[in-house]
C-alpha cells in the first residue's frame, strides 16, 4: 500500500503476475489460451477456404467477392472462437457428470452490465465495419469506370435456354456468350416466360431474368478462357440443364468472332485497357 501526501492509505492493485496467478486470473488465462488456439485454427481455415472453393477468378467482380468472403471469414474467426472456446472450456472444467441427481448449484451470476455493454459495443463496431466494407464493395462493383465504353449484351432467358445478342455490334444473336477481355460489359437481362437467373459463377455476377422487365448487371472479364453460364432460379423441368459457356477472348480474337457471326465490331470501344 502506498501512502499519499495526507498520510492515509490508498489501495493499489496487485502486480500483474499476482493477478494472473489468482483463481480469477487463472480462469481468464485458461480460457484465453483456448480461444486463441481456436481463433488460429479458424483463421487458418477462413483464409484457406475462399480460394480453395470459389471458382477461378475471371473478373474484377469475382475478385471483390473473394476478398469480401476472405475478410468476413477473418472477422468471424475470433467471434466463433470466443463463443465456442467458452463453451468448450466450461465443459472441460466444470463438468459434473450425468448422474441422476443434479450437481450443486453454481454461483448466482445474474449478469453484468459491463459485459453486456462491452458485448453490444464490440458487436456493433464489427457490424459497422462489415457494413462499411459491404457498401464500398457494392458501390465499386456497380459503378462502371468513367470513360469506359462498355460492351452491351442482351441476355434473353427462356425455359430452358439462354440467347445472347449484341445490339451494338450488328444485332446478331448467339446461343453462347463470347466476351472480350478487359472491356467492361453490361448485360441487359430479360425473360420470355418465367423468372430465371443469369449467373456467371467465375465472374461473380448474377441477376434475375424477369418477364416484361429488363434488369442490368455489369462486370469486366479479366481472364482468358472458357467459363460457365448457369441459371440460378428454378424454372421448371430442365432447370438443371439451362447452362452454357462464356468464352473470353482478347480484343482482336473477339472482333474476329463478331465478324464471323455477321456482326460489325465496335471500333470505338476502349479495348485493351484493364484499369484493375
Amino acid at each position, binding site marked *: 500500500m502506498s501512502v499519499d501526501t495526507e498520510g492515509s492509505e490508498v489501495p493499489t492493485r496487485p502486480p500483474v503476475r499476482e493477478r494472473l496467478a489468482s483463481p480469477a486470473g487463472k480462469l481468464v488465462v485458461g480460457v484465453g489460451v483456448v480461444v486463441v488456439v481456436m481463433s488460429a485454427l479458424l483463421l487458418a481455415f477462413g483464409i484457406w*477456404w475462399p480460394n480453395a*472453393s470459389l*471458382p477461378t477468378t475471371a473478373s474484377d*467482380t469475382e475478385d*471483390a*467477392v473473394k476478398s*469480401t468472403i476472405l475478410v*468476413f471469414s477473418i472477422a468471424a474467426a475470433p*467471434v*466463433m472462437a470466443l463463443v*465456442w472456446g*467458452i*463453451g468448450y472450456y*466450461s*465443459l472441460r472444467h*466444470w*463438468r*459434473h457428470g*450425468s*448422474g441422476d441427481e*443434479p450437481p*450443486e*448449484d*453454481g*454461483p*448466482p*451470476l*445474474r*449478469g453484468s452490465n459491463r459485459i*453486456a455493454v462491452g458485448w453490444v459495443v464490440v*458487436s456493433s463496431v464489427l*457490424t459497422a465495419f*462489415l*457494413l462499411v466494407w*459491404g457498401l464500398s*464493395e*457494392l458501390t465499386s*462493383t456497380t459503378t462502371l469506370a468513367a470513360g469506359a465504353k462498355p460492351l452491351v449484351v442482351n441476355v434473353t432467358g427462356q425455359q430452358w435456354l439462354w440467347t445472347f445478342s449484341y445490339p451494338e455490334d450488328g444485332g446478331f444473336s448467339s446461343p453462347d456468350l463470347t466476351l472480350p477481355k478487359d472491356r467492361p460489359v453490361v448485360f441487359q*437481362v430479360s425473360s420470355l416466360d418465367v*423468372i430465371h*437467373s443469369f*449467373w456467371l*459463377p467465375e465472374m*461473380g*455476377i*448474377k441477376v*434475375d431474368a*424477369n*418477364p*416484361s*422487365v429488363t*434488369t442490368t448487371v455489369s462486370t469486366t472479364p479479366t481472364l482468358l478462357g472458357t467459363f460457365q453460364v*448457369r441459371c*440460378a*432460379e*428454378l424454372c*421448371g*423441368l430442365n*432447370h438443371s440443364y439451362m*447452362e452454357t459457356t462464356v468464352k473470353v477472348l482478347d480484343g482482336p480474337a473477339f472482333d474476329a468472332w463478331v465478324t464471323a457471326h455477321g456482326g460489325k465490331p465496335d471500333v470505338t470501344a476502349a479495348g485493351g485497357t484493364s484499369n484493375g
Partner: protein
Amino acid sequence: MAETTAVRPAPAPTSSGGGIMRRLNLGTGLLAGVVLAAVAWFVGSAVWAGNDKATDQAVIAAEIGWVLGFLIGIGAFVAPIRWMLGKDPSHEDEMFLAGKDQGVGRYFRFTTDHKVVGVQYLVLAMTTFGVGGLLAMMIRTELAAPGERIFGGEVYNSLVGVHGIIMIVSTIIMVVGPWGNFVMPIMIGARDMAFPRLNALSFWTLFPAVPVFLSIAALRGIPTGWVAYAPLSDQAPPGMDAFAVAIILFVISSGIGAVNLIVTALTMRARGMTWNRTPIFVVGVVATSLLGLIALPCFEVAMVYELLDRSMEASFYVPDQGGSQWLYANLFWLMGHPEVYVILIPGTAAVLEMAPVFARKPLFGARLAVIGIIALVALSVLVWAHHMFVSGWAPTLAGPFMLTTELISIPTGLIFLVLIGTIWRGNIWTRLPMLFIYGFLWNFMIGGVTGIFLSDVPADNELHGALFVTAHFHYTLLGGAMIGAMGALVYWFSKMTGRMFDEKVGKVSFYVVMIGFNVTFLAMFYNGLAGMPRRVADYQPQYEIGNQISTLGAYTIGIGMLLFLYAIVHSWRHGTPSGPNPWHAKTLEWFVPSPPPLENFEVLPVVTGDPYGYGEVDTHHTTHAGAISGPAGHEGADS
C-alpha cells in the same frame, strides 16, 4: 325489511349424456371430409366444365370441401351452433369436451384440454417431419450420382418443393405446438389456455392440411420450390392449387393458435408472476406468436391471389396482363423472413430455458435475452428484401436492406452472450438436454456466421441460388431450431408422459444426427461456393464428391432420427416412471405431477420470484408453488 330473497342464478343446463357432440370424432371427420370433397369435385367439374381452368377449379373446390367436411364431421362447429340455438353446453358437456375420463379416445376427437392438444401437435409435428425427412432422403438419392435419372427432373422438382413446405410447417409447429400448448399454461400457473375451443380448432384446422399437401403427388406435383415463385406457379399443374389451399389452412390455423398463446400469456399468468418473473420460454412463445400473426398472413394473401390467377384468370402476377412477379416475391418474403424467426425463436427460447437447469446457474442477463428476442422480432420484419438482392427489384434498396440484415446480428449475438454466460462457471450436468444445448451452440454459430456472408450484397450475388444458401438455412433451422426442439422434447418428455426419456439411445442418436448433419451441410457449403446451383437434379462432374459426401451424411441423419424416434416410442411405452421434477428445475410445470391432472393445479400458485434462482440462498428469489398434491411436489423448490 330484514328479509332478502336471495336471487340465485338459473341453474346450468344438465347434459342428457348423449347428443351429437359425443359421437363425433376423427373417424366421422375423415368420412365427412371425403364425402364433401367428392361432392365438391363433381359439382365443381360439372359447373365449370369446358374451360381451361376447369381442373384447377374442381381441385380447389374439392380441397375446400374436404376441409369443411372434416371440420363439420369432427364437431368443430357443434359448440357455436349450439350457442346460436340457445343450447349452451352444460358442465358435463364441457368436461367431456376437455377429455375427462375418456382415455386414449380423447386424442382422436375435438378435445379442448391444452395437454391433449399438445400431444396431438407433437404427433403431427413428428409425422410431418418424418414425411419431410423421407423426401430429403429421396432428394439426396437423386443427387448421389450425376447424369443418372433416378427420379428425373419433374418428380425431383416436386420432391424439393414438398420437402421444403412440409419441413417449414413442421418446424414452425415443432416447439410452439407441443410445448407452447402443453407446458406454457402450466408454466404460467394456469389451468388451461385462454380459448380452449380455439386451441382444438387450431389443431384440427392444420390436420386436414396435411393430406392436402400430400395430394400434390396425385395432382402432377409442383415445379417450383416451396417459395412457389410466380409466374412459374401460374404455369404449374393442379398440384399448385393443393399447395395454395394447404398454405391458407396452415396460416389460419397458426393465426388462431397465435392469438390463443398471446392472450393466455398476457392475461392468465399466476398471481405474482410479473414479466420479470416470467420464464424466458414464455417470452419466446409470445414473441413468436406475435411475429407469426403479423407475417404469415402475407403468405396467405399471396396464395389467394395465386389461386385467383390460376383458376379465375386474374392477373396479379402475370406481367403482360398488368401484374407483377415482384408483387409475389415481396408478399412472399414479407412472410418468408419473419417466418424463419418464427421457427428459430421457440427453439432458441427452449434452449435458454434449459440452460440454467443444466448449468445450475441463473440465466445470465435474462433481460438481455428478452431484449434480444424483441429486437429480433422488430428487425425481422425489416429485412425481407435481402432474399431479393439479385431479383433486380429496387436496386437502390440493396444498401438499406444490407444495413438492416447486418443489424440483426447484434440481437443474435445477445442471445449467444446469454447462453454462454449461463454455461460459464456453471456446474454442468451433462444429461441429454445439455448435449442438445451444445449442439445448438455449435450449429447455430455456423448458421449465423454464414448468414452474415449472405447479407453482403456482392457476395450474395455470387452465392444466391446456389447450395451455400441451402446449407446456411439448414444450419440455422435444422441445426439450430430443430436441435433445440429435440432438446425440448427430451426435457419435457417426462412431464408429458410421466416417464423418463431413454438417455442411452438418446445420446447415441444425438451424436449420429450431429455428425451426419455437419458432414452433409459442410460439404454442401463447399459445393455452393464452387458454383453448384440449388434445386437442380443433375450437376457437373466436379460436384460429384461433395454430393456423395452430402448424401452419405443425409442417410446418417436419417439413421439418427430413426434412433431418436425409437427412443421416443420406447420411452413412452417402457420408460422409467418419473417424479414430478426429475431435473430439479424451478419453473411451475415441475411442481405438478407427471403427467399433470386435468386441471393442472389443485390450488393455483402464487409466485414470489423468478425461476432462475440457482445458487441463491435468499428465499425471496425462489418460487413458491403453493400447496400441491402428489409426491415430492416440493423437492427442489428451494434449492
